[in-house]
C-alpha cells in the first residue's frame, strides 16, 4: 500500500513540475461536469499545504478556474486512468473516466500534431529507392551518414534535418552511384602516377624522377577505379645498395601486401614490377614498402654505407576483362529507344523520373532534366568526330546524378492545405508515397502508382487493398529491419561493445545473428504466418548454428536457419531473444533496471521518469560479493522513497529476467548465489520469472496498444498527441480482437491521420532565417 502511494507521488511530481514550469499561466474554467469526479476521487490527497505531488486541487475547484497546463496534465492522467492509483478502493468507472476526458476535450481542443509538408528521405529510404529503381546491389547505405533519431525512429520528419554536410554526402553518393551504373565506354586510358604525386611515409625526397625512401616506410599512389575488374599495375623501382642484403620491396594494393621483390636495379636503369589482379570500384591505393633499411655511417666506402629504395612511376591499366556494360545500361537502352541522344535521354528521364519522384512528370520537367545533362556534357562546338556512345553515356551519367540529388526525389512534399482550409485529403500519389515509405521504406512500384492514377487510393477500401498487397511483398521486410529493431531497441546491435573478458563469445557476427532472429520472428508476423501476440508468446524460434550453440539447441542440419522449440525456462517470443537481453544489459552484467524499463517503454508504453541526479548505480559484482545479491542491493530502491516510486515496478519486472544472462544464456546462479527470479509487483501480484512477465503482458491489451502507437509514430513520421488517443485506442482494440498485423496496418493507413493533412503547423517556424528571394 505504501509503495503504491509513492508511485502516485512520482507521477504527480512530474506533472506538478510541468505545471510550475509553465510560465504563461492561462487560466480556464473547470468543466462543471468533472467537478464531482475531482471532489470524490482527487481532493483527498491533493489539498492542503502539503498536497501529494505538490498539486493542490481544492483551491481551483472552489474558484472554478485552473491553469490550462494543469488541466491538460489532468486529462492525460484521466485518459490513461492511472490516477487515482490502481490500489485505491474507490476509482471512477470506465464511463466516468471517458466522460471526464470528453468534457475536457470539449473545453480545450486536444493537442494535435501534423507532420511538415516537406521532409526528406532518410538514408534507408534513399538506399532502398536506388536498389528498387536501378536494380543495383551497390551498398548505398554505407555512403550516407546515419540519421538522427526522433520519437524513437529515424522516420521522424523534424529530426530528419538537412544540414549541408548531409546534403553534400547525398551529392557525393549520387555521383558514385551514377559512375558505377554508367561506366565510360571502352577500356579506360591508363593512369600514370608520377613520383612527385606519391604520398611518402618515412623519410626521403624526390629527385630526378624517383621518389626515395631513406628509412623503412612506404610510397603510396591513389587513383580512382571507375569500373570494377582486373587491372595491371606496373611500378618502376630502383635502389642504392649497402650491407649484405639486396633492397627489398613489398607491393601493397589497398593496404594488403600482394608480393615481395628484391630490387637490384640501379637508379640509372630502374626495373619494373608488375601485378595483375581484381580491383573494386572507388578509390584504390598502390604502395611500395621499403622493408630492409640499412645504414652504417662508419664505413669507409661512402657507396656502401646506406641502402635506400626508390620508386619511379606507377601505371594502372584496365579493366582488362570486364565488359563495359551494366544491367542498368542495358535497361536504359531499351527505354531510350532510337533517335538522337537528347531524345533518348528524354525518354529515360521520363521513366526514371516518374519512379523516383513518385509521380508523372510534365513536358517542361523532362526538358529541364535533359538540359542539365546536356549542359554538363555537350561536345565542344566544331568537334567533328562525335562519339555518340560517349555522348550517350556521359549524358546518362549526369542525368542519373541529377535525378538522385533532385529535391523532388530527396524531399517528400505534400501540398499544404491553403488559407482557411482546415484540412485536405491527400491525393493519390501522396498516399502512394506514404504507403510505400511506411511499408517498404522505398518508393512506390508501378502497381501502386497506377492504383493512384486510377483513383483507387481515394477511398479507404482502395488504400487497404494496396496495403495488404504490399505486406506480402518482400520489400515489407523493411518493417522488421527498420521498425521492429528501433521499437525494440536492437538497431545497430552489432556495434554494441560487451566486455570480452566476461562475454568472450559476443562478437559482431553473433550479435548480428541475434538481431536477425528477432527480425525473422517479426517478418513472420508481418506475413501473417503468426498472430501479433506471438511476438511475446511463441515457443518456437528460428536459429542459425551460432545461436543454436548459445541457446544450447540442436544446430541446423544444413547451412542457414532451422526451426526449434525454445526451452521451458525461457519466456515466449522476443522476451527470450538474446538480442533484447543483450540490448538491455550493461557491458559487464545484466541490468534488471534496464530490462524493467524496456518492458515498460517498449511493451507497455509507459515511460518511467529517469532517476534523480546523484543516485549511484549498483556496484559491480565485487561489492555484491560482500554478501548481498543484486536482488538485495536493489531492495535499497524500495527503502529510498526517491527511487521506490518507479523502481518497485521496474525492478520487479527486470529481476524476473535474472535467470537470463547479459549474453542471452540461461543461468541458475550468479556469483555462487542461486537466483530467485520470483518478484512482487506493487499491487501485490507475484511475477514468477520471465514467464511471469509474459503472463502479465498477455493478461492485458497494453502490449497491443504499445505496438499500435509505436507503429503509428513510425508510419506518420511524428510523435502522437492527445488528439491521437482515440485512434490509438481503436487500433489497439481492433488488433486485440483480430490479432493479425495486417489489421493494425489497415487501421493505420485508412485513418484520417494517414490520409488527410490538417493545418496545424502555424506555430512551427522555418529553421533558417528565410529563403532568399526566388531568382530564377
Amino acid at each position: 500500500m505504501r509503495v503504491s502511494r509513492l508511485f502516485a507521488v512520482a507521477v504527480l511530481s512530474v506533472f506538478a513540475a510541468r505545471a510550475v514550469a509553465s510560465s504563461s499561466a492561462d487560466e480556464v474554467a473547470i468543466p462543471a461536469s468533472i467537478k464531482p469526479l475531482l471532489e470524490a476521487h482527487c481532493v483527498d490527497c491533493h489539498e492542503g499545504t502539503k498536497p501529494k505531488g505538490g498539486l493542490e486541487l481544492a483551491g481551483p475547484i472552489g474558484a472554478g478556474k485552473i491553469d490550462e497546463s494543469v488541466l491538460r496534465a489532468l486529462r492525460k492522467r484521466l485518459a490513461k486512468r492511472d490516477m487515482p492509483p490502481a490500489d485505491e478502493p474507490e476509482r471512477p468507472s470506465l464511463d466516468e473516466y471517458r466522460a471526464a476526458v470528453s468534457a475536457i476535450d470539449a473545453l480545450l481542443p486536444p493537442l494535435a500534431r501534423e507532420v511538415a509538408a516537406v521532409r526528406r528521405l532518410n538514408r534507408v529510404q534513399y538506399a532502398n529507392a536506388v536498389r528498387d529503381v536501378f536494380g543495383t546491389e551497390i551498398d548505398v547505405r554505407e555512403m550516407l551518414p546515419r540519421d538522427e533519431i526522433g520519437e524513437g525512429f529515424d522516420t521522424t520528419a523534424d529530426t530528419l534535418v538537412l544540414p549541408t554536410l548531409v546534403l553534400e554526402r547525398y551529392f557525393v553518393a549520387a555521383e558514385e552511384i551514377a559512375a558505377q551504373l554508367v561506366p565510360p565506354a571502352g577500356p579506360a586510358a591508363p593512369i600514370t602516377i608520377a613520383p612527385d604525386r606519391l604520398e611518402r611515409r618515412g623519410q626521403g625526397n624526390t629527385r630526378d624522377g624517383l621518389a626515395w625512401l631513406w628509412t623503412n616506410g612506404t610510397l603510396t599512389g591513389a587513383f580512382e577505379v571507375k569500373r570494377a575488374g582486373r587491372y595491371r599495375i606496373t611500378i618502376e623501382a630502383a635502389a642504392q645498395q649497402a650491407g649484405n642484403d639486396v633492397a627489398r620491396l613489398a607491393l601493397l594494393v589497398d593496404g594488403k601486401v600482394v608480393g615481395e621483390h628484391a630490387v637490384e636495379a640501379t637508379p640509372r636503369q630502374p626495373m619494373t614490377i608488375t601485378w595483375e589482379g581484381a580491383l573494386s570500384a572507388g578509390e584504390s591505393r598502390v604502395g611500395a614498402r621499403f622493408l630492409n633499411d640499412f645504414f652504417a655511417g662508419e664505413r669507409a666506402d661512402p657507396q656502401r654505407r646506406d641502402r635506400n629504395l626508390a620508386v619511379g612511376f606507377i601505371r594502372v591499366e584496365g579493366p582488362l576483362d570486364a565488359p563495359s556494360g551494366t544491367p542498368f545500361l542495358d535497361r536504359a537502352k531499351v527505354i531510350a529507344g532510337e533517335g538522337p541522344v537528347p531524345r533518348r535521354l528524354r525518354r529515360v528521364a521520363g521513366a526514371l523520373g516518374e519512379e523516383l519522384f513518385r509521380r508523372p512528370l510534365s513536358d517542361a520537367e523532362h526538358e529541364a532534366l535533359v538540359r542539365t545533362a546536356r549542359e554538363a556534357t555537350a561536345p565542344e562546338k566544331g568537334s567533328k568526330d562525335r562519339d555518340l556512345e560517349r555522348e550517350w553515356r556521359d549524358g546518362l551519367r549526369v542525368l542519373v546524378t541529377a535525378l538522385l540529388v533532385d529535391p523532388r526525389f530527396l524531399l517528400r512534399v505534400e501540398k499544404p492545405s491553403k488559407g482557411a482550409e482546415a484540412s485536405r485529403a491527400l491525393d493519390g500519389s501522396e498516399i502512394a508515397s506514404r504507403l510505400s515509405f511506411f511499408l517498404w521504406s522505398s518508393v512506390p512500384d508501378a502497381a501502386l502508382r497506377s492504383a493512384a492514377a486510377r483513383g483507387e487510393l481515394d477511398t479507404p477500401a482502395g488504400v487497404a487493398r494496396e496495403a495488404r498487397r504490399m505486406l506480402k511483398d518482400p520489400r515489407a521486410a523493411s518493417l522488421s529491419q527498420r521498425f521492429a529493431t528501433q521499437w525494440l531497441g536492437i538497431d545497430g546491435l552489432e556495434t554494441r561493445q560487451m566486455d570480452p573478458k566476461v562475454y568472450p563469445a559476443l562478437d559482431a557476427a553473433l550479435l548480428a545473428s541475434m538481431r536477425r532472429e528477432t527480425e525473422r520472428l517479426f517478418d513472420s508476423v508481418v506475413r501473417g504466418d503468426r498472430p501479433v501476440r506471438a511476438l511475446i508468446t511463441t515457443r518456437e524460434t528460428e536459429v542459425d548454428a551460432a545461436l543454436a550453440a548459445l541457446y544450447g539447441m540442436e544446430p541446423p542440419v544444413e547451412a542457414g536457419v532451422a526451426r526449434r522449440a525454445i526451452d521451458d525456462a525461457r519466456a515466449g517470443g522476443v522476451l527470450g531473444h538474446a538480442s533484447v537481453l543483450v540490448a538491455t544489459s550493461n557491458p559487464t552484467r545484466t541490468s534488471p533496471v534496464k530490462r524493467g524499463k524496456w518492458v515498460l517503454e517498449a511493451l507497455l508504453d509507459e515511460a518511467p521518469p529517469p532517476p534523480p541526479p546523484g543516485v549511484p548505480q549498483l556496484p559491480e559484482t565485487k561489492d555484491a560479493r560482500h554478501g548481498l545479491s543484486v536482488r538485495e542491493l536493489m531492495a535499497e530502491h524500495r527503502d529510498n522513497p526517491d527511487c521506490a516510486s518507479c523502481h518497485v515496478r521496474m525492478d520487479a519486472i527486470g529481476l524476473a529476467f535474472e535467470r537470463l544472462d547479459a549474453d542471452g544464456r540461461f543461468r541458475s546462479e550468479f556469483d555462487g548465489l542461486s537466483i530467485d527470479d520470483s518478484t512482487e509487483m506493487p499491487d501485490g501480484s507475484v511475477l514468477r520469472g520471465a514467464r511471469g512477465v509474459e503472463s502479465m503482458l498477455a493478461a492485458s491489451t497494453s502490449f497491443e496498444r504499445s505496438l499500435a502507437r509505436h507503429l503509428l509514430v513510425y508510419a506518420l513520421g511524428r510523435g502522437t498527441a492527445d488528439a491521437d488517443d482515440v485512434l490509438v485506442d481503436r487500433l489497439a482494440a481492433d488488433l486485440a480482437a483480430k490479432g493479425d498485423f495486417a489489421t493494425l496496418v489497415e487501421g493505420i493507413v485508412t485513418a484520417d491521420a494517414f490520409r488527410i493533412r490538417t493545418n496545424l503547423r502555424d506555430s512551427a517556424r522555418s529553421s533558417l532565417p528565410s529563403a532568399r528571394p526566388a531568382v530564377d
Partner: protein
Amino acid sequence: MREPLIDRRTVLRGAGAAIALPWLEAMLPRGIASSALAATTAAEAAPPLRVAYLFFPNGVNVEAWTPTADARGLWVPSPTLAPLADFRGDIDVYTGLRHRHAEANGDGPGDHARSAACFLTGMQPKKTAGDDIRAGKSIDQVIADDLAEQGVRTRLRSLELGSEPAMTAGNCDSGYSCAYSANISWKSESLPNGKETDPRAAFDRIFGKRGQSPEEAAAQARSRRSILDGAAKEARRLGMSIGASDRARLDEYLEGVRELEGRLREDALADLEVGDAVPDFDAAPRDIGSRIDLLGEVLALAFKTDSTRVATLMLANEGSNRPYREVGVSEGHHDVSHHGKNPEKLSKFAAINRFQTERFAAFLRALTRVKENGRPLLDSTIVMYGSAINDGNRHNHDDLPILVAGGRAKRGRVVASAPGTPLCNLHVGIARAAGVKIDRFGDANGVVGI
C-alpha cells in the same frame, strides 16, 4: 645524378633525432598562400585566427581534474591534466563558469541531452523526443556567419567532426531527442549540423579525391555546376507553394546548394596540395584514440590550408556509454561517471578523463607541428576544450571544466570567475578575440576575455 643525398640523414642520425623531424612543415607547400584569401591575408601582418571547440561528455572526476595554482597564479597539472604538461604555457584553466540553461528549470531529468545542446548555444533546449527540436544557434556558427559577412570566403563555412555517429535505436535521455546529445553545432535553433566521424571521409571532403587528372576534375566541376543549377531551380519552384511553417527542409536544401556552389568557385582558386602530409589512414589502428587523433590531424590540415576557420570536435556523444578498454575500463563511460564516490569507479572515471585529455594534447601537438610563416599554427588557433557537466555523478552545470589554448597569447593562468558566471561570457570573449564583434550571446551578462 639520381643518387640521393645522404648528408641530411646522417646529421639526423648523429643528433639522434630521427623521429623529431617536423613532418608537416616542409610537406605543406602552398596551402594558404595561393587560396582565394591570399590577397586579404597577405596584406595583414598576422595570419587569420581560427577557432576550434572540443567537447567531451559526462563531466569529470572533479578531484582528479582540478589543478592547483602556484604562487604566480599559474596552474600546476592535476592527474587528469598531466598529459598537457608540455603545453602549460599555452593553456588557461577557467573556473567558476556555469551553464544555467543546461539545468532542469522545470524540465525534469535530461542533463546529458541538455548539456550538449547548451554547450555552444547557451540556450535551454526544448524538451521534445523529436517533433519540433529546438535549441539555439551555436557560437561557432555565429562566428562562421560573421566571418562570411566580413567577406571571408573559405571553402567550408565550418567543419563539424566527432568520434561517434548519430545514435541508433532508443531514447537518448529522458524524453529528449537523440539529436540533442549527438550535436553541439547548431546552424539555427532547429538545425543541428551533424558531424563527420570517419577521418578519411573528412579528409576527402576537404581535399577531394586524389588520382583525378585535371581534365577529369574540370569535367566534374562542369557537371556539378550544371546539376546544382538544375537542383536549385527545382527547389525554388517547389518552394513557391510551401508556407513558412513547412519549408524548413527546402530552405536547408537551398542553403546547402548555395554552399556547394560557393565551394565550386573556391575550388577553382584553391591550392589544396598536401603532398606527403596526408595522414596514414590505412596504417592507423581502428581504436578510438587514433581515430580522434586522426580527426585532429585532418582538422589541423583544414586550418592550415585555410579551408575553414571554425570547427567543432566531439570526443564522444553526450551520455556516451562506450567502454574504454584502451585504459582498462570495461564498463561504460556513463556508468562509471555515476561513481557514487565508489573509489574504483572514481579511478576508472578519471582514467577516461585523462585519456580524453591526451586526445586534446595530441591535437595541440598537431597544431604545433604545422607551421605558418615559421610559427606554429597553434599561435593563430584558439582551442576551447570542455564539458557542460562538472561532476559526472551530480550532473551539475556550474564550475564547468573548461580550458582555452593557443591564439597568440601567453597563457598558463588559472582564470577564476565569480561562481555562476555564464560560460556564454567566455563564448563572447573568444568570439571577440576571433574578430567577431558581439556583446551578447545566450545568457551572457558580460565578457570573460581570453
